[in-house]
């Protein structure tokens, strides 16, 4: 049985890129355009993992992550994409929102795919080594 993934982003092109990557790898992919839409789809059918953008209209990524974490019946790992930096460290983000990995935009679909596969296999993510600021 194929692994299922829910992708949430208000930017259609980003959604399409991620969808292509995961579909090509044999994932059962569903897409949502904001947090509310994503939350509805989770309740309809639980995916194996959620990848969500942080800034979205109606309900943002952190809001959706909070709902997932606060629901004791749900055991759903999540990956967060964001174009803005976070004040919280990855450990704090996991503690507060149950988010296992954070990927900064612009992101690599290849890296996103690797992280998702790793989380589904091991239950945790090892982020790629951060680029040094001076290397940019």
């Amino acid at each position: 049985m194929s692994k299922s993934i829910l992708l949430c982003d208000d930017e259609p092109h980003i959604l399409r890129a991620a969808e292509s990557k995961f579909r090509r790898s044999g994932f059962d992919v569903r897409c949502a355009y904001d947090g509310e839409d994503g939350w509805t789809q989770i309740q309809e059918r639980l995916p194996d993992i959620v990848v969500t953008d942080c800034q979205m209209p109606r309900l943002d990524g952190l809001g959706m992550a909070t709902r997932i974490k606060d629901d004791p019946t749900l055991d759903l790992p999540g990956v967060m994409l964001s174009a803005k930096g976070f004040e919280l460290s990855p450990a704090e983000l996991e503690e507060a929102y149950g988010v296992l990995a954070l990927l900064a935009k612009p992101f690599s679909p290849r890296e996103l795919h690797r992280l998702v596969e790793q989380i589904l296999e091991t239950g945790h993510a090892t982020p790629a080594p951060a680029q040094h600021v001076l290397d940019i």
Partner: protein
Amino acid sequence: MALLAILTASFACSWLINLSLGFSFFARAMLLGGLTAVSAALVLRAVQKNSRKEKAIHRFIEVMAQLDPRELSDNVPHEALPHLKVDNQWYEAAQKLHHRIQENCRRLEDVEHARAGSEVRVRNLEGEHERALGILTALPEPVLAIDDYDELVLTNSSAEELFEIGSVEQSDNRALGSLVRCETLVNLMTDTRKHRTQSQRTGDIVFVDDDGEAKYYRAICRNMFSKVEGEGEDEEPKSTGVVAILNDVSNEKAIQRRNAEFVSSVSHEMKTPLASIKAYVELLADGDAEDEETQDEFLEIINGQADRLQRLIENLLNIARIEAGVVKVKKKAQSLNEVLEEAFNVVQPAAEQKGIELVNAISSIYIGVLADRDMLMQVAINLLSNGIKYTSPRGTVTLKSRLDDDFHAAFEVVDTGVGLSPEDAARVFEKFYRVKKHSNMAPGTGLGLPLAKHITEDVHGGKLTVISELGEGSIFRATLPSAQELNKS
């Protein structure tokens, strides 16, 4: 003198008595009697003469005592003084007394002059002090000064208002720590005093008022030094305390914050198309586009996103150029309605995509304006896009135009969107300002409305205003001097 006369007369009498020993008793008696009478007359005359001199000196002293001492200050004898003969035995003493009084009077006059000069100086200093205090009081910057015992010696009204304290002149309690409820400032002032250096120390202070609004001040503290009188040039000046001036830097902080928000907003806007470009390039490189059609689709997306990035960069540069006055304004008489029609057509697809009804209520009469076509269109597009962004699907955005009675050309963008609170409406034309609770509705840099205002008002001499009610919608109204009005003038 009288004594001398009596003695002389006695000697003369004795000599005559001895001489007259040869004469008869009667003759001798007559001679003695005559001589005694002469002697008595002489004595009487001498006594009378002395008495006149005493009277003269008495009168001289009396008149001198009654005269105003200042009248005696002249070197010449005063006309009111009685004449004193040189042979008067008191003459020398009287002259000495006169001269001493004259000398003392001159000294008195010098002292009087010095005192008058001091009084003038004191009055001048008082005036200067009052003026300095007036300037200090009028200063909008709070100013405080402490002495060497950390006691407040001076506060101006701005400082008294800020720290809610009374004037220190009327206060028994002057301790800085107990009056000024700001630990940062108290520490800064006392540290400055302890170090006694000539250089200034600065520190940032934040005050949060009852409404939760933060005010930022930069405190500059300096030691006050004064030269002690009588000390040489090489002597170190003595520290007399510390003065602190608080500059309100709230505006600078707000600008810094808005700039940071702008950079963050722009970087987000740039990262979004860049993210797409990078993602699709990687997908193509990894062979994730399964067929040619998908490859074309990906390339199309890359191209579209590159265009979006280019537009964003161009807009940013345009804003910077227009604001800096680098862009040449090409004003010419043209139809306002034609420009509005074009702008209407530009934003129509965006409205349709969002399910918003875009209503064309552009006037059918010709309205001529003297304007830069591209800039005017930018204003119309910005206002229409703004209306579409902040109106929910199934809402309406209406574009109207008209010629006012006073020959002003006007156009309005009326939406049924989220509307603005009075506070937001007052700030919506500020650069980089975005209404926080609506910022998730649509991407934006907070530059569209400020740019529209700049073009309408600064470039074209018109007016751009907003009337809005939260939850009900907004009316953005641009008024421009019409070509008719310009012809009239």
